[in-house]
């Protein structure tokens, strides 16, 4: 048996065809039942204007409500992803620290966050803790005192300036939440490195910091990456939770639209498709990254 690395040629056998037909039939039947038995007047033609619409005053195509929501979701996920990675890495290193005090801090953080429902966490954080932080930073006055020239970049990075305090509260909450999971990924990555590597590094006379930096981390990073990328995709999906604190992301925009048009099915299906498109692109990118990192 010679193992070939080339993928086999793709052929559809009669059995495959039968299975495909059966699956397609099942989907078709469910779809038909949903369309006819739901007692619902479908009006798909109202959806496109919420994705892209022609602005009469500006005489140009501009993004509609749902695309605005999608952009907010992307901003939210990016910032939360970055912050959560920083926080998670620090806490992950604390988890494997030789010092009890650091291990306890990180342990407390991870267990607290991991064992509470994110929805409740978001509420508590937003109404009790987020406010205090924003008040301490005098966020409101800061935004109002911004020069007009800087509003463009701020809007590009964080969305509408007047919603910045809410947006930051949401980002902090999401990062705290995702950071706990990233901390565990980092810990598992470091723990997975064979003890021999530590011993070898120590026998070269390296300090603990140097062992970490030159020997352990480079190897652990490689093992962590797939899980970290998966966690980032989770962050995108979890960002829907902050719709409860009225951040105008995709889910919130969808709900507002339903309250206005009462077209729940069309709107939900569109929102679902948009989320899927976003996360699926991320999945493909992750796949590429993993292939690139594999030792040739």
């Amino acid at each position, binding site marked *: 048996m010679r193992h070939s690395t080339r993928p086999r040629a793709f052929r559809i056998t009669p059995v495959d065809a039968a299975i495909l037909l059966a699956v397609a039939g099942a989907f078709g039947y469910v779809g038909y039942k949903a369309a006819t038995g739901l007692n619902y007047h479908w009006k798909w033609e109202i959806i496109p204007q919420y994705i892209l619409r022609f*602005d009469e005053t500006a005489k140009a195509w501009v993004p509609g409500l749902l695309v605005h929501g999608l952009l907010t979701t992307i901003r939210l996920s990016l910032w939360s992803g970055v912050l959560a990675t920083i926080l998670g890495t620090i806490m992950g290193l604390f988890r494997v620290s030789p010092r009890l005090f650091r291990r306890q801090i990180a342990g407390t953080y991870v267990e607290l966050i991991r064992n509470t429902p994110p929805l409740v966490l978001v509420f508590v954080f937003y109404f009790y803790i987020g*406010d205090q932080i924003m008040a301490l930073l005098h966020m409101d006055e800061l935004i109002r005192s911004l020069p007009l020239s800087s509003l463009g970049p701020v809007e590009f990075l964080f969305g509408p300036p007047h919603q910045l305090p809410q947006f930051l509260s949401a980002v902090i909450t999401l990062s705290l939440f995702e950071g706990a999971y990233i901390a565990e990924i980092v810990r598992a990555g470091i723990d997975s490195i064979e003890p021999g590597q530590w011993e070898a590094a120590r026998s070269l006379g390296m300090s603990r910091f140097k062992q970490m930096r030159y020997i352990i981390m480079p190897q652990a990073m490689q093992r962590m990456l797939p899980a970290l990328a998966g966690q980032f995709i989770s962050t995108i999906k979890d960002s829907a939770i902050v719709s409860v604190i009225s951040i105008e992301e995709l889910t919130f925009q969808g709900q507002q639209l339903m*309250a206005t048009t009462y077209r729940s099915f069309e709107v939900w299906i569109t929102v679902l498709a948009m989320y899927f498109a976003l996360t699926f692109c991320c999945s493909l990118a992750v796949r590429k990254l993993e292939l690139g990192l594999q030792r040739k």
Partner: protein
Amino acid sequence: MTLWRTVVSSLVTLVVILGVSHVTLAGSDTRNALARESSLETILKRGTIKIGFDTFKPWAMKDKTGEYIGFEIDVAKRLASDMGVKAEFVPTKWSGIIPALLSGKFDILIGGMGITPQRNLKVNFSMPYEFTGMAILANKAKAPGLSSLEDFNKPEIVVAVRLGTTAAEAAKNFLPKATKRFFEEESQTIQELLNGRAHALVASNPLPANLAAEYADQIYLPLQEDFTSEPIGFALRKGDPDFLNWVNNWILFTNAKGWLKNRYDYWFKTKEWENRIQ
């Protein structure tokens, strides 16, 4: 090393204690500050008034261009211009709208909120600027030929209603025996009724009337009249008599001019605005 650790841990403890006490003190702090200076001053200084609301057709909704339109939005814009400031709209989920007002996310709640004693314990209400009525909408196939509240007040009747609204209160009071199911969004209650999983729906008019017109072959209005008439007011934070006084007099003033009624009739009695949202 031990000394260092002791210093660090005591510092951390101190920060935590300070943080916690700051949070607990913050409540009484803001109250004192509010008593000392009215929101009115803050708003005028800021040059914008922040208005909290939730999407409720036709009180407040987004049109095709993403701008807010509706009866409440007209009222809020007029109020802001009479005050000489800009209106900034803060769309907020209904379920968290009172906590959001109390924690200062906006200055005033103009969101078609019905005045109830329970809510009034937490917030101050202005005098009513409009009255809204509750109506019942029933499924023709599941609950045919009913025509009074008594007909619906039975355990086998399932009533769908939106959580935290005065419609939910009305359903509890007027239909105590009926089985009630609560939903976060109005679109869910409508779907529940159309799919026949609920016999009836309770909501403020004009929604039931509009729906009965759209789905005439599936649902109907069992009662000829609204079975309640509820006062709707602006909600403000407590301990601010100046702002409350200004808002009340604004309502008297605009009512005397007939402006409020004119806007109400436009949004509730006509369908001219329907093409702006779809």
